[in-house]
């Protein structure tokens, strides 16, 4: 009698994504598309619960997978939405796909914006370019629970007016009660009558009070750096300023050891951190 | 000779002609050597030179662009200096070359120093550097090569196609793609190596025989007419892949076709980096 021991063979390999179908693709800017994706198994889709700030890996089979923040709000939209900028091999490949194409989705991963803790507070959103993608669900969540939060101020910057990612939603955002939307661009065009300024300058100009306020920011590293300085100047304490980090991650499970910032993993301990946490990290976030 | 190197390094650092001298120091095994970066004149006494100083230090110059650097260079390494000057990767005025006269380096590995001269040293023609600012060691009469030139290359050439394929497959199959060969090579300085490129994807992600073969073949071709023959790639390979044979074979071919050897001077353009219509060598 030969000894063959049985391993715990199961199909729950955490790297195997759920199959999903692209329901719609919308051009948001020249290089950003909004993908609405539904998981093929209705039961899995039904149980795919996620919170603003969480991310998922989307697979373009044959090329690979990359992590993207989920830009929709659970139960407010059908399926999952991802705003994806064409910037590398996986995103190039996803941009080639059309409605009906099969992709893979695994997640949700990471922590989330602690919106429960922010109830009763004013929310100040500062986003630049594709950095609006993780902030959009925060805005829409707050607008969906309008009475639970104070004032909502959104500063959204982009390179040009055509690069303002969520333009179709601007009316909804700005016309909501106690909500204000400030747009700014680096370079205007003949139709642009709004601000032409850098995001941090707009923050300094508008001077929102730090009192009972949480500032949530995401955008290019250079924008974050100067926005952070501007917010500090206005009296925001580091723990009142929240951001979400990007990393070159391969698993989302704290295993591939690629997204650590010091002794924290972006995928497991983040991606949402406040600047008090970030300043205690060993490495530059 | 060590004293000459140390004194020169001290002088270069004290006069602030350079802010770092790259030379050789003793390794932690106590018997072999390792690259040593000296920033303070008083540390220059840690510099050594002996028959274990096998490293080609010129690779490090690529990390020090725009900074004044002193560097200890053997004859073989000086060919790499010429290649890098020719390819405009380093500026002559930024580099102070402490040339050393070398009578050959022995086979060394961690904690082991043999008495056997390295194969490349047995047919060395450059016991003194081709380019230097200061020469350490007695200018000796050129030593005659004591070994038969590239015997192993001839041996492989004599094999049949199938035998050669088997020979290389056996070696490439072992490759773990640590890229030590690339990282140590002064000729490998592409901003993005073809093997790392995702778009276009030249080599699949697998660490497996087919991909390994592509990796080594293309890398060898990229070095044809540019490889200075320092043999660092073969030395650092944890899997003992005889990379020298590949590079030597291509160097021989370039020499036969174009009468060109890499690194003999900094002026002459390498043949595969130029196109001369008249230079019809019967390829294609």
């Amino acid at each position, binding site marked *: 009698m030969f000894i063959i021991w049985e391993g715990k063979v199961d199909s729950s390999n955490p790297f195997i994504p759920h199959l999903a179908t692209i329901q719609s693709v919308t051009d948001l800017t020249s290089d950003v598309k909004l993908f609405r994706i539904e998981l093929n198994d209705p039961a899995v889709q039904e149980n795919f619960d996620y919170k603003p700030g969480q991310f998922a890996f989307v697979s373009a089979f044959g090329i690979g997978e990359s992590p993207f923040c989920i830009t929709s709000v659970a139960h407010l939209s059908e399926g999952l939405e991802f705003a994806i900028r064409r910037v590398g091999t996986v995103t190039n490949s996803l941009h080639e796909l059309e409605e009906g194409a099969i992709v893979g989705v695994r997640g949700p991963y990471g922590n989330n914006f602690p919106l429960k803790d922010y109830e009763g507070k004013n929310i100040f959103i500062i986003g630049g370019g594709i950095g609006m993608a993780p902030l959009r669900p925060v805005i829409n969540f707050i607008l969906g629970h309008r009475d639970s939060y104070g004032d909502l101020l959104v500063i959204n910057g982009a390179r040009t007016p055509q690069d303002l990612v969520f333009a179709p939603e601007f009316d909804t955002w700005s016309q909501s009660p106690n909500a204000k939307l400030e747009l700014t661009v680096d370079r205007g065009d003949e139709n642009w009558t709004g601000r032409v300024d850098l995001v941090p300058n707009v923050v300094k100009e508008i001077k929102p009070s730090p009192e009972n306020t949480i500032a949530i920011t995401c955008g290019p590293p250079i924008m974050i750096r100067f926005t952070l300085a501007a917010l500090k100047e206005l009296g925001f304490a580091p723990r009142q300023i929240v951001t979400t980090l990007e990393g070159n991650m391969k698993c989302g499970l704290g295993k591939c050891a690629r997204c650590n910032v010091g002794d924290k993993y972006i995928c497991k301990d983040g991606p949402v951190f406040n600047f008090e946490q970030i300043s205690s990290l060993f*490495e530059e976030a | 000779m060590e004293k000459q190197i140390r004194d020169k390094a001290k002088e270069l650092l004290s006069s602030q002609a350079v802010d770092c001298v790259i030379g050789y120091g003793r390794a*932690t095994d106590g018997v072999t050597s390792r690259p040593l970066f000296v920033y303070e004149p008083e540390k220059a006494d840690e510099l050594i030179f002996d028959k274990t100083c096998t490293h080609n230090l010129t690779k490090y110059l690529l990390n020090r662009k725009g900074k004044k650097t002193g560097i200890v260079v053997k004859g073989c390494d000086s060919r790499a200096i010429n290649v890098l000057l020719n390819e405009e990767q380093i500026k002559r005025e930024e580099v102070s070359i402490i040339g050393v006269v070398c009578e050959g380096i022995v086979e060394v590995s*961690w904690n082991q120093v043999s008495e056997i001269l390295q194969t490349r040293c047995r047919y060395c023609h450059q016991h003194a550097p081709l380019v230097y600012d200061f020469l350490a060691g007695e200018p000796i009469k050129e030593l005659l090569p004591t070994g038969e030139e590239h015997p192993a290359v001839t041996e492989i050439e004599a094999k049949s196609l199938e035998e050669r394929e088997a020979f290389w497959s056996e070696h490439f199959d072992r490759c*773990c793609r640590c890229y030590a060969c690339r990282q140590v090579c002064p000729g490998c300085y592409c901003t993005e190596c073809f093997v790392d490129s995702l778009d276009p994807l030249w080599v699949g992600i697998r660490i497996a025989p087919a991909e390994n073969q592509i990796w080594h073949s293309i890398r060898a071709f990229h070095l044809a007419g540019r490889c200075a023959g320092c043999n660092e790639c073969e030395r650092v390979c944890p899997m003992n892949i005889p990379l020298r044979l590949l590079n030597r074979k291509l160097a021989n071919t370039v020499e036969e076709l174009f009468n060109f050897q890499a690194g003999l001077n900094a002026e002459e353009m390498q043949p595969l980096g130029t196109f001369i219509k008249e230079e019809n060598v019967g390829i294609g």
Partner: protein
Amino acid sequence: MTQIISKSDLITWLNKLAESHVLIGPVNDNAGVTLFRKVSQAEEIAFDFTNTTLSPKEWFFPPTETLFTVERKDGQVELVPAEDVEAKVIFGMRPCDARGIALLDKPFLNEPADTLYQQHRDKTALIGLSCREVLPECFCTSMGTAPDDSSNMDILLTEVADGYIIQVVTEKGAALLAECPEGLLKQSEVTPPALSSAATVPIEGITEIMAENFDNVYWERLADRCLHCNLCAYVCPTCYCFDVRDYNDKGKVERVRTWESCQSSGFTRIAGGYDRRAGKAPHLRQRFYHKLFYFPAEFGSVACVGCGRCVKACPVNVDIREVIMDVHNLGGQSGQQ
């Protein structure tokens, strides 16, 4: 009284095991490289090896491994999980390498468990071999193991004059020994001589000192010499960073995981080019902080077993023993650039 088996009987037993398992052992290559390889007969095993070039981690965390394949049929897509792994017996596991596997367990089996790794672990038995010789680069006794450490093994063999003393450690090991043909095991009263590794490394208190020295210019200086190849990570029994990408061979698509190292230039670069850990020194610092600070913080132990492979293989003598000693000498005062 202990059980002992002669070398020829050991070969007989291993060949018996090879009938129902994939047998893996150290094999000498023609090029002077020793690797853990599948053998069809125990006679192919290099019984007199010291330490292998690559650690046996490659049998649990292979350089390249398929996670699943993508099958496309009639417009439908199906994801097929990787095939079940084979039942393996690895002979010749050194105590340091076995500890390496025990350390790999920590990230890979941490919830949610990496099911492929788990399979490799569950379906592999380790027949260890105590070290007879301590190499100049070895420092296992400083790293929580020893040349005759039986923990992390299923069976440990220790070579003595007339054979191998057998220590059964786990039930899996007992099951393997039950496969041993009758009459091969003898009783013996021989006690093998004790060995301890040559070098001792002051590992005590290292994490506390590491915490103080993140911005020390020491790491810049160390990185001067480093070539930033992946060699140290690939020979290391405890390095486990990986890459995941798709392998597309004329439409046959597999998602594969491969070894990767924190030294590679694109390790932290994200699409678009931004790299928050740009530069050579932060890359090398990551290696030592992961081993000596982050891993201990997360899993309670330094990620080094003292096998000495990186010490021996590094082309430019970046020696972790020296780094540990240097860090101790840096003390609590962070150096200024």
